[in-house]
């Protein structure tokens, strides 16, 4: 596997893709001039530049967080280049030119045929008419008034919406990495579901035009107006590579009265090799505001990649009777580290939240669940149920749980359950005594363990996720 990863990571150099790009890369380092440069390159309105500069000023006063249970060498933020023009990726002419190792990986993961081509960097129109698919998709959405485009496009075409909502859920100075993102974000997705519209299909980043080059500081904003509903899928199970080591994305969700936003992620960034060399640092701020009454925000994540994951998709339950959900599977292997969980902030009356977190650690990895449940004085009748289960494979890995529970209203009911289990010799012996080999046994145990979360994923995603987990843990036992 590592050979495949290595070859993919090295691909741009191997094929000499770097031509001409150098000229359009900003000098390394971060200062106001760089931010002005980014804004100018993207031809942004003045208010967005101010937003960026304000974030930058906040960032300067902030310290990189150190409380998380992950360890990595200090990041030199002045050694990073914060702007490069979208890379003109060289397209391969046909599937025959794709590395056969990569194709085998897709095969194992069960990635659909037409997606394989796109992911492998084959010009998709060689295989099928992607433009027509994307166009049909867009037309269908436009008919019901849904806007789904890159955030840069939205800045120009729907500035009133961006101005109204950007930074309202994750303020520019929210945390160190969010401030950095707000100052330098290059692109991401924008999605707007107008009043009363139930989005007729799952929105997937895969179908968004211009997904390439959304880069290391991604920004996503999703708004569901009154009585609207949307299911949004981020990422895919196929491995994703990037030469940038640091990634700091921000995702903001806003749900008005009776609106429903379901956000599903499968994250499979490059995790480093089996010795812990390389891999992406993923520092993400994801937050949903259940602003209106009876609104619902649901996060489902399957985190399998990155060398370091630092991520707490959260819900602010402001509307009365609003609902927040967090379903998570985090898998770490080799030397991966994950510190992930959620925050459920109950403000409105009769707000409810559910947290189901499953951590799986193998190899020398470390996985931590960190979750906050806060019931504020105004949250009369609030309820929370949390379940945090950890599974260890082998005896070199670690699992940790850091639950924070703050209850300021006597009428609240808060439950927390936690368990730790281990796939050990005796479990595997039981399976092998029934003729079932170790790989199949682990796959069955893991899928049983994650069932509550996989059930929340859209059907095909769930099937892919199941395979992905088996694949990720291949060889970790026995």
């Amino acid at each position, binding site marked *: 596997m590592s050979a495949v990863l290595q070859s993919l990571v090295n691909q741009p150099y191997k094929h000499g893709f770097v031509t001409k790009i150098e000229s359009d890369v900003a000098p390394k380092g971060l200062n106001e001039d760089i931010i002005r440069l980014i804004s100018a390159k993207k031809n942004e309105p003045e208010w967005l530049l101010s937003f960026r500069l304000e974030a930058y000023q906040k960032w300067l006063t902030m310290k990189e967080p150190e409380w998380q249970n992950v360890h990595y060498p200090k990041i030199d933020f002045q050694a990073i280049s914060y702007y490069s023009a979208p890379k003109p990726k060289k397209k391969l002419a046909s599937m025959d030119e794709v590395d056969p190792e990569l194709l085998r990986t897709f095969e194992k993961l069960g990635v659909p045929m037409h997606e394989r081509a796109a992911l492998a960097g084959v010009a998709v129109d060689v295989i099928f008419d992607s433009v027509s698919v994307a166009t049909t998709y867009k037309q269908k959405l436009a008919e019901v008034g849904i806007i789904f485009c890159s955030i840069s496009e939205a800045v120009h075409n729907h500035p009133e919406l961006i101005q109204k909502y950007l930074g309202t859920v994750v303020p520019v100075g929210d945390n160190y990495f969010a401030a950095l993102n707000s100052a330098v974000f290059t692109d991401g997705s924008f999605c707007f579901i107008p009043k009363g519209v139930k989005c007729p299909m799952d929105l997937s980043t895969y179908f968004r035009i211009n997904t390439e080059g959304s880069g290391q500081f991604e920004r996503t904003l999703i708004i569901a107006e009154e009585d609207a509903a949307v299911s949004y899928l981020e990422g895919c199970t196929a491995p994703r590579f990037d030469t940038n080591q640091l990634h700091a994305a921000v995702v903001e969700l806003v749900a008005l009265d009776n609106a429903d936003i379901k956000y599903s992620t499968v994250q499979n960034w490059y995790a480093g090799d089996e010795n812990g060399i390389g891999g992406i640092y993923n520092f993400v701020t994801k937050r949903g505001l259940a602003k209106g009454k009876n609104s619902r925000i649901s996060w489902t994540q399957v985190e399998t990649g990155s060398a370091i994951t630092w991520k707490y998709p959260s819900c602010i339950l402001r509307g009365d009777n609003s609902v927040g959900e967090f379903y998570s599977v985090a898998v770490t292997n080799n030397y991966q580290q994950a510190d992930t969980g959620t925050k459920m902030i109950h403000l409105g009356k009769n707000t409810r939240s559910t947290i189901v977190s499953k951590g799986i650690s193998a190899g020398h990895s470390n996985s931590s669940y960190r979750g906050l449940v806060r019931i504020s004085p105004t949250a009369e009748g609030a309820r929370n149920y949390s379940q945090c289960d950890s599974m260890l494979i082998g005896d070199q890995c670690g699992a940790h749980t850091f639950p924070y529970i703050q209850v300021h209203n006597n009428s609240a009911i808060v439950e927390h359950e936690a368990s730790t289990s281990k796939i050990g010799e005796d479990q595997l012996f039981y399976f*092998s*005594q029934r003729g079932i080999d170790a790989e199949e046994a682990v796959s069955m145990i893991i899928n049983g363990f994650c069932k509550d979360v996989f059930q929340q994923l859209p059907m095909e995603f769930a099937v892919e996720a199941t395979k992905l987990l088996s694949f990720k843990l291949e060889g970790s036992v026995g």
Partner: protein
Amino acid sequence: MIVNNSKTLLLVQGLRASINGTEILKGIDLTVKSGEIHAIMGLNGSGKSTLAKVLAGHAAYEITAGTVRFEDKDLLELAPEDRARAGLFLAFQYPIEIPGVANTQFLRLAYNTIQAQRGKEELDPLEFDDFVREKMKLLDMNPDFLDRSVNEGFSGGEKKRNEILQMALLEPKLSILDEMDSGLDIDALKTVANGVNQIANKDNATILVTHYQRLLDYVVPDFVHIMQSGSIVLTGGKELALELETRGYDWVTANKRSIAGAIA
């Protein structure tokens, strides 16, 4: 039943095994032919459960001497899953729980794995459902067993029934039942014993590992072996178990030479 000219299924000779450097089995000799039911009795710590696990191939034990043949195969050369596929079955004293995995899913995977090995037809979920429900009647099991997670929240008796159900499904040549009677009330014991008796035939064999004679009232052995400190010190017919029941294990310790002489 003892069958004339039946073939030898299991031949254990001079078997020694240790765990973490401590020797537990100190030279076991045992011959089991098809059609036979053997009981291995002994106190806690006598090594009888270790013998069961060693035969099934548990990785924690190191074999230091001896040979084990299973039909025409060198059993010790086979991985645990290959021993299972070759027809050796161990009913666990403490079956593991697998949360989130439906029992039917696990049973079908085990069944199809063994079927594939035997070159027989695998069953799809619907076919398997009919098949397993029929087998469950044998053990007086409630069909809701199939949808529950494997052994999770099962009572002691339910876990044991689930083990015997697997034995019924997999149709092994040699079944080793480790402390099948522990944790069972008398009704459950009768049900489980009845299942074992129905599965037993002239072509397969059963080894019952047990502390108490009680089980042997319902599954009557052809041979009884008494283990002490890692060796079989005494072998006899079913009456040996009754003798042991009235006189206790101390009697064996004190008189093993003379008893052995008397029985021989």
